[in-house]
């Protein structure tokens, strides 16, 4: 099947239709379109690159097999996101890899060669505290916080993905931020005062 009109910016429904018609390249476009979003969504949940890499590949494998069953009742990214969150939650429930986070922080310091040394140090500290704060969140609160704050999903979308009420999602989000605030206070970290 000709894929002249298909590219990474093509409409999701077009890509899905082309894939279901046998165009394997359409799936590659879907992967390139959403791989970063999927990766970072997972990464902010599991807080570890290797785990995030493995889970990202598994999510797209799952998507490959289940794409023919997608009926278009929700947004396509919401469908993908649901798979990603479920895989992340399952992973977190099985494993708790706190120590792996420290390796990533050291790598972050080495890779941040555009910043001055003191800025690099502060950035690495900030990253470490951020990850520690997110890791302190219960799994559901972590998922709600990441979806709302980082991925800018609506409470309605979050409630669909997690199969919970909208009011409950709002409460989860508020309590997640309060918990991060508590971690920051316990670290006596100087929070930047900006308007």
């Amino acid at each position, binding site marked *: 099947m000709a894929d002249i009109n298909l590219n990474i910016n093509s409409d999701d429904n077009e890509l899905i239709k082309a894939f279901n018609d046998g165009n394997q390249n359409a799936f590659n476009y879907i992967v390139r379109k959403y791989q970063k979003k999927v990766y970072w969504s997972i990464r902010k949940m599991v807080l570890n690159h290797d785990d995030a890499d493995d889970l990202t590949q598994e999510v797209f494998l799952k998507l490959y097999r289940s794409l023919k069953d997608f009926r278009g009742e929700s947004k396509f990214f919401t469908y993908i996101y649901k798979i990603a969150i479920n895989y992340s939650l399952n992973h977190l429930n099985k494993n708790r890899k706190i120590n792996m986070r420290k390796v990533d922080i050291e790598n972050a310091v080495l890779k941040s060669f555009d910043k001055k040394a003191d800025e690099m140090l502060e950035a690495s500290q900030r990253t470490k505290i951020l990850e520690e704060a997110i890791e302190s969140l219960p799994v559901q609160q972590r998922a709600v916080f990441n979806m709302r704050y980082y991925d800018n999903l609506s409470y309605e979308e979050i409630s669909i993905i997690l199969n919970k009420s909208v009011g409950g999602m*709002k409460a989860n989000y508020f309590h997640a*931020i309060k918990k991060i605030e508590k971690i920051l206070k316990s670290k006596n970290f100087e929070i930047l005062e900006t308007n």
Partner: protein
Amino acid sequence: MNSKFNKEDLKFNLPDYILKKIGDSELVSEIENELKVNSEFKKEYEELKRTFNFLNAAEFENLSESYFANLPVKINRRLETKDSLSFWKKLSMFWKILIPSVPIILIAIFLFNNFSEDNIDQSLRNKIKENKSVESHDTNESNPTNNEDKNKIENKETVNINEKKQDSNDLAKVNKFIKKNNKNYKSIRKNKVDAITEENEDITDLLNPFADNLDDQETDEDEESLFYSTDDDTETLENEFLNLTPEQQKEILDNLNQAQI
């Protein structure tokens, strides 16, 4: 002034208010009014704002673009690997189900065998019972007076047993008489043999006066052996007695009793 939002609703919407994500203008004005009049609500607002400032400044480590350039390749490679393993995965699933179920199957077979043997035993018992009932039923049909026939059979058996006993007693009696009176029997026999021999000698002399009597060559011992019974003779007598008819045996026994030998 009644508000459609309670204090908890206003509190939970503070994060979105700080990030300017609230689309409802009425809600926004409610929050702003609350901030003006409620110091605790304002303090809450300030702390949340500081937290969001930190979150805005903090970042996760950046990844190089090469990672995302290679990610589709890795995904395709994994797809191909998974497809080739699907058969083995299915087989492993099969074994995952089969192996745990083996003990259950073995237990079921064991129970079934025991249960079936019990059934067989039970069926056999039932058959035996049925046969017994059929036999007794048949017996009832052919012999209307069951008790009388039973008595007859029992009597017949008693008679047979008694007859056998009588026979063995008689045989013992005969042996006893023979052994006890063996000497007398020997002497009686000798007298009879002597009488017969004399008669034979007279006849021989008459017929052949000049012939040697070859009988002279027999020893006395041999002669005596003709006259005296031995154990072999006793056994022969027993066999001869047993070969007789019951009436004959009885006659001999009566004679022996009368003779008191």
